[in-house]
């Protein structure tokens, strides 16, 4: 029973049932290079064996004439015995009989007195015949058994190595697609048949892999579904749906059925030979295990992603509660102060308090914008609408959004005058620039200039924002693009750690790259690379 063999260790692949008729069982060309080619019982070989037997008997007889003067005639029987043994080793049963009979006849005729005559009932003749036949047949049987054993051992080794390489391939494969590819390739190598693998999905069983030669249609799919539901084999050569050309087997594991495999049942070699059935069942078990493993890996990955989402949510909550509440507290504080103690404050103080509140409220708006953008990025709601944009226009819009009082006059834009229109989502890119410029202005105090450089390179647009701020520590150049990551600097301006990660999200949505570098004379350079070909 193939399904029970699942947990059996590999060397048990071939059971002793195969001993009785090993020669007929082997349809595999790869197993043709035999250790022993002699056991072949084809008629051709039998005739050739008989002819060789006769020739050997003849040669021994001639040799007998030559040495007869030196030894006693009955001892010549030993020579004939040698011949029989030789034939028994090299050839099959029929040549042995031919050899034994002809040896007995020739021995009796030429060497047993009365010489050159057959005496019926001659005791020498009978003993010689029986002796030769017995020795020949016994030797032949023993040799045959040894030969079968060797053949078996060799096939076993081949099965083991085939299974081993199969297991290695499915174990090293990550991802269901690669595993399926390996399964199909090894099935072809081991059984010379194309296969189809069906896996359960959200909408029932669907084809996970099908060899190109496989004809798989609606009717076949129904058979496969039946196999999946019932956990029994069906199709060609079985009791269920035997009209199909494909033989279906369930892929079972301890926890249930993980899929169905179908292989071409009808083929030039007929049904799968019995000794390969065990190999097949191990193959199926391993495939089932590999599929389960891939499934588990996928689930683990999803769990990991969920964990990451969880972590982000915590960071988000943290950020919201801290970054949104602090400006809000200022606003509320100012408002309540003026409402309750307005009469105690002079106009100038009230003005300055209100200005603070206004600034904080703007900050709040900016934070909400960032959080919204982050959420849009997270949920995949960002859709790049790439239009041909004028970089001057994009930079102008960013500068206007930053507002002149923010120190815009410190910003030098260096855009080649002849720059053609470039494909990008103008709104998103304006936001990227606003974020980068805002950072650059914020982290480089005083009048230090901030520079925007735009350059057209082969196939891509380069946008660089350069400042003379305190710079990002070497080890954190990549991490600054992580969500909620902030370089730990005492007294740094307030921020959420979202700006740069939003920039990266928007740039990557354009299939572009963004990276931060330290400048030689101090400061930071953020470089954006946007591909110029239109996005699909």
């Amino acid at each position, binding site marked *: 029973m193939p399904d029970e063999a699942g947990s059996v260790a590999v060397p048990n692949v071939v059971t002793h049932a195969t001993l009785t008729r090993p020669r007929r069982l082997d349809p595999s060309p790869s197993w043709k290079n035999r250790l022993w080619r002699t056991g072949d019982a084809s008629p051709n070989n039998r005739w050739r064996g008989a002819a060789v037997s006769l020739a050997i008997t003849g040669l021994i007889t001639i040799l007998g004439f030559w040495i007869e003067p030196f030894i006693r005639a009955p001892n010549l029987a030993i020579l004939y015995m040698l011949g029989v043994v030789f034939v028994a080793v090299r050839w099959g049963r029929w040549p042995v009989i031919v050899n034994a009979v002809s040896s007995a006849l020739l021995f009796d005729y030429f060497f047993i007195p009365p010489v050159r005559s057959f005496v019926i009932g001659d005791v020498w003749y009978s003993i010689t015949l029986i002796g030769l036949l017995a020795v020949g047949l016994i030797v032949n049987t023993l040799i045959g058994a040894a030969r079968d054993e060797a053949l078996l051992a060799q096939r076993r080794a081949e099965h083991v190595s085939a299974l081993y390489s199969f297991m290695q391939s499915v174990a090293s494969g990550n991802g269901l697609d690669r595993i399926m590819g390996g399964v199909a390739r090894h099935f072809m190598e081991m059984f010379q048949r194309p296969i189809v693998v069906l896996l359960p999905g959200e909408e029932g069983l669907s084809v996970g892999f099908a060899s190109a030669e496989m004809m798989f249609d609606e009717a076949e799919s129904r058979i496969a579904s039946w196999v999946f539901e019932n956990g029994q084999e069906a199709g060609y050569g079985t009791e269920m749906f035997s009209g199909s050309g494909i033989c279906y087997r369930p892929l079972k594991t301890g926890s249930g059925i993980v899929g169905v495999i179908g292989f071409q049942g009808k083929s030039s070699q007929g049904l799968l030979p019995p000794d390969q059935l065990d190999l097949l069942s191990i193959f199926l078990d391993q495939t089932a295990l590999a599929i389960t493993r891939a499934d588990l890996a996928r689930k683990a990955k999803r769990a990991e992603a969920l964990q990451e989402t969880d972590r982000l949510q915590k960071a988000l909550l943290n950020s919201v509660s801290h970054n949104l509440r602090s400006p809000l507290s200022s606003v509320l504080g100012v408002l309540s102060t003026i409402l309750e103690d307005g009469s105690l404050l002079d106009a100038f103080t009230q003005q300055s308090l209100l200005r603070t509140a*206004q600034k904080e409220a703007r900050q709040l708006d900016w934070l909400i914008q960032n959080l919204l953008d982050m959420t849009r990025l997270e949920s995949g709601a960002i859709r790049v609408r790439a239009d041909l944009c*004028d970089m001057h*226009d994009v930079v102008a819009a960013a500068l206007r959004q930053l507002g002149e009082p923010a120190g815009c006059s410190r910003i030098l834009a260096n*855009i080649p005058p002849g720059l053609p229109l470039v494909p990008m989502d103008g*709104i998103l890119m304006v936001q990227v620039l606003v974020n980068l410029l805002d950072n650059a202005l914020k982290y480089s105090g005083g009048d230090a200039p901030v520079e925007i450089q735009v350059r057209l390179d082969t196939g891509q647009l380069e946008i660089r924002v350069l400042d003379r701020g305190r710079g990002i520590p070497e080890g954190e150049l990549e991490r600054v693009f992580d969500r909620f990551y902030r370089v730990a600097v005492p007294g740094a301006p307030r921020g959420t750690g979202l700006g740069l990660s939003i920039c990266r999200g928007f740039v990557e949505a354009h299939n572009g790259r963004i990276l931060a570098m330290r400048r030689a004379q101090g400061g930071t350079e953020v470089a954006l690379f946007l591909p110029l070909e239109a996005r699909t």
Partner: protein
Amino acid sequence: MSSPGPRVLIVDDETGIRRFLRVSLEAHGYSVNEASTGEEALQIVPAFRPDLILLDLGLPGVGGKHVTSCLLEWTQTPIIILSVEADESEKIAALDAGADDYLTKPFGSGELLARIRATMRRVAQPDSGPVFVTGELSVDLAGRAVRLGEKDVQLTPTEYSLLKAFVIHANKLLTHRQLLCEVWGGAHYEDPQHLLRVNINNLRRKLEADPTRPRYIITEPGVGYRLRTEARASAAL
């Protein structure tokens, strides 16, 4: 309501916003009326006959876009859209339908008043005379002559039509679609956006000293463009 200033109708469902708008506008001499829904706005307009309508896009019931088209069917009253960022496509639709301008919430009263003044100014002087002047730029619509300071500017016919559209609607936000309609008429081109951008780009190169800090033709990302006139005329209000 008896105050003599320009009449402004505020249409917004949020009491807080209406209150803030009323206080700031009345402080600047406007006469204000309020509506909290689109239906109410449509009822008030005939009697109140506002000079300008501030219309929130996120109204419950009849949407702001619908109110815009209804209003514009029988009145020339300029409309300024108040929107939040998520209303992007609604906003463009309302502007395409004929609204004059938009303000994204949250906004300060300074910004609001500046927009209202610019819009009123534009409406008050539909014919700016044969020669339009702002900053260094002068456009003689009768003589088809464009000058920047002392220099003549050579424009292609398309660039000129574009500039003419801007001049006629000076200070008004013109959406991409409106510009395409105005300059290229109903003709269909393969990539009209591209056509528009190339011409704006060329026009800017000829008119602006620093294209990254444009003085005249201002881009509203994702929406359209406007010709900004310089503050000289704003002394009128």
